[in-house]
């Protein structure tokens, strides 16, 4: 009964990151957990990061799950969505298709596996918005980097809870992104271990 008598609250929250190929999901998570931005390209595996946080005076263990984004793995992504509290949908500012695919591809997968989950839209690589080389590159195909207003409009249309912008390379807005995601995960109701369940475990 000693276990049952322990009234300490253990709260765990699960955040899953999804988004198009090479839009910087793994870098975001690396900076969130370790603060280290890897320059080398390393293709993601299904990876789980864990970090403790204090949200509103409450200690929370936040686990962040990295997913593969290629077409072949979209269903295995869905497996990870199935018990997520928050889904961070990511797109890269210099890639307009990744923003389109959030509407047409990722929203469908999320709706299939986890309808009614809270969604946070995250714009990544925001430092490239002012990068001249990127602007020149996009001008050749008659495009420009995704603007703040466009991202916000998409967030409204997919009914996201938050719209965040950050740059993992310069470590701008990454910690805020983590805090906001954890806050969203903590919002609403949650239930603790019920006593009758506890009893059945001990007896």
């Amino acid at each position, binding site marked *: 009964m000693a276990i049952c008598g322990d009234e300490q609250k253990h709260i765990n929250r699960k955040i899953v990151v999804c988004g*198009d*190929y*090479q839009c910087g999901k793994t870098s975001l998570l690396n900076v969130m957990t370790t603060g280290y931005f890897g320059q080398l390209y390393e293709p993601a595996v*299904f990876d789980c990061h864990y970090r403790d946080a204090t949200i*509103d005076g409450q200690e929370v263990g936040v686990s962040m799950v990295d997913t593969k984004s*290629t*077409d*072949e*793995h*979209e*269903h*295995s992504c*869905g*497996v*990870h969505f*199935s*018990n997520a*509290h928050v889904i961070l949908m990511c797109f890269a500012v210099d890639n307009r*298709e990744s923003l*389109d*695919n959030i509407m*047409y*591809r990722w*929203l469908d997968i999320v*709706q*299939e*596996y*986890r*309808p*009614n*989950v*809270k969604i946070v839209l995250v*714009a990544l690589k925001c430092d490239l918005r002012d990068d001249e080389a990127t602007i020149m590159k996009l001008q050749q195909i008659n495009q420009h980097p995704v603007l*703040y207003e466009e991202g916000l409009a998409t*967030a*409204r249309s*997919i*009914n996201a*809870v*938050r*719209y*965040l*912008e*950050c740059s993992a390379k310069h470590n701008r*807005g990454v910690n*805020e992104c983590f*805090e*906001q995601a954890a*806050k*969203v995960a903590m*919002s*609403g*109701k*949650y*239930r*603790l271990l*019920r*006593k*009758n369940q506890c*009893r059945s475990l001990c007896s």
Partner: protein
Amino acid sequence: MRFGELFMTNMRKSQLQIEVITTDQFNATKEDATIFGAPLKEILERSSFSTKGGLCIPYVLHRCFTEIAKKGIKSEGLFRLSGSAPKILQLEKLFSEAPDFGKDVDLTPYDVHTLAGTFKKLLRSLPEPVIPHQLHVYYLNGYSKSSSNERNLALLSSLGHRMNRYHFDLLKYIIAIAAYVEKEKAHNKMTAEALAIVLAPTCTGLDGIINKLPNNKEKERGDKLSVSLGRNTFNRSAASHNVLPLSIVKDLEQWTSLFQFMIVNHEKLLVNWTNNFDYEETKIIIPDIPEQKEPEDEEEIISQLKASFEALPISQKEDTKLRFDEFPELTFKDFELPDLTIAPVIKRDYMRDSWQKDNVEILTRSKSAAALSMSQSCEHFFAEPEVIIDVSTPIFATNQRKTFKPAVNTEMSSFSRSVQSARPYSPSQRPGDGKYFEILSQWKSREDHLAHEQQKGSQAQKQEQANDDAIAEEPEVPSEVTPLDEPSAAVGQEDDKEAANMDQDTENTTEESSFAEPGFPIEQQDEVIEDVAEEQPEELPISGIEPLIEEQAHENNINVDSEASLVSSPTALEFSAEQQEVLLSAESVSPQMVSLRDEDDCKNKRKDTPFPDTHMNKLPSGQSLDSGVYSTDGLSLSDL
């Protein structure tokens, strides 16, 4: 029901039980699928292309790849990067238009990666993947990295000849293409390994199987259909849903190395495949692939059933308390569906999006499979009354004994309403959330169940009298009318009805609370649920953060929905057929409307998809009132 119990025990003991429903039985092809999603043979009938080497491949693949080769085989990350999803959808539509299936499509405006995405999508959407499920075992067990190249080559060459001709042609074509792309690896960075990573899941359909694995909802319901995949079998109840099954990951690794081997050694392989390769020279013994057994005769099944029952020890016979001979008039035909080949299993979550897509899964192709699903349904019927697989309804409907009719969930709403009146709804609790599953799991023993039935039988008559008055006041709602037209009216009716029933229910309150006691854990009041203070979005640290949703709006939804789910939470009692009909007409229509409207609202928030108006008509009569749907699964709406 009693016979169902007997049948279940028989099936469990005998050899007849089939634990595996193969994946292709899950892969019910859509009726309207012409190219994407249709079987390979049908695709080839509609539009095919024969290469110079005489390979017969789908026309779409040919068009896409020639265009890719024209535009840039050297573009980086070819076949690995994902193209834009809307354009792929657009191409899919163009290629599946009826008369000529996209013979004259202009592919110039499309990106290389979009074309590659279309290429892969066709391969992934094949119901039977390029390497058929049947052969997976031989590939995975036979191939190993450590063994010599010659041995592996011989194995792969011989296994190729085992394939269907169409699939074999397609495999040859894919390997040839992969080799062609791999030659430019200095520019496109697609090495054999990178290509294998892409091709292995596409050609074996391993990722698609995850879609077929049970999700949380189904786990809670306890559907125990098992899925076979290659050499693995995933039991619905046993499979873990939040983690990828380890066996899939291992298989994927094996497949990746296998494809890498095939791409590297493509020249020898293609020579071996085109010539008649004589694998007997290599002295590799490959077991014959067993053909699928045809369904046996009815008489054999019955005789085997009887024999297996006779073989049981006496104690087990007494356990069942029934003998096969007690039903001399029943033959196998009584349990047979009208047409076993298309016995539909309606998904229980027809309120969700999936209803629009593929609400009907063809599960039973053979009689034996039907018998399996029947035994499972019987099992659930007995153990956990609310998780009947819906296939049981046609089975028992064909039976002439009305007492065998499964419990329709209409009376459950009355039961839950009585509970509601006994314990008033408090907003801090989440109703309908796993509560009833716990209750019902306590009824697993037969005696308990019967005792409950007897109690409820007496309760039911009182309840029915009370309801008769309520029926007279209410306007009848025809079940065919879609509730979407008048959602507010539905809510109004619901409220009126509750108000009307409240007075009558209070009379029964004392009795009902006493009878509900054994099932209802009293400790539930100890359940701790906390409200976290709502977020305060005014002061946010970074300029890019904007609160987008008013929490207030969510709260309003919560109240409506949670009440609806409370009213119609699943329980299972057993009533006679007449009582069922009375209750059926009276009650369970409007709760469905309420929750339906809420579902619809939620959906419209995210995406403006039209909700099918005709979904009520699609339901068979017995199943439309199945109330297991309302139980909020996992994260309920009130979590928002």
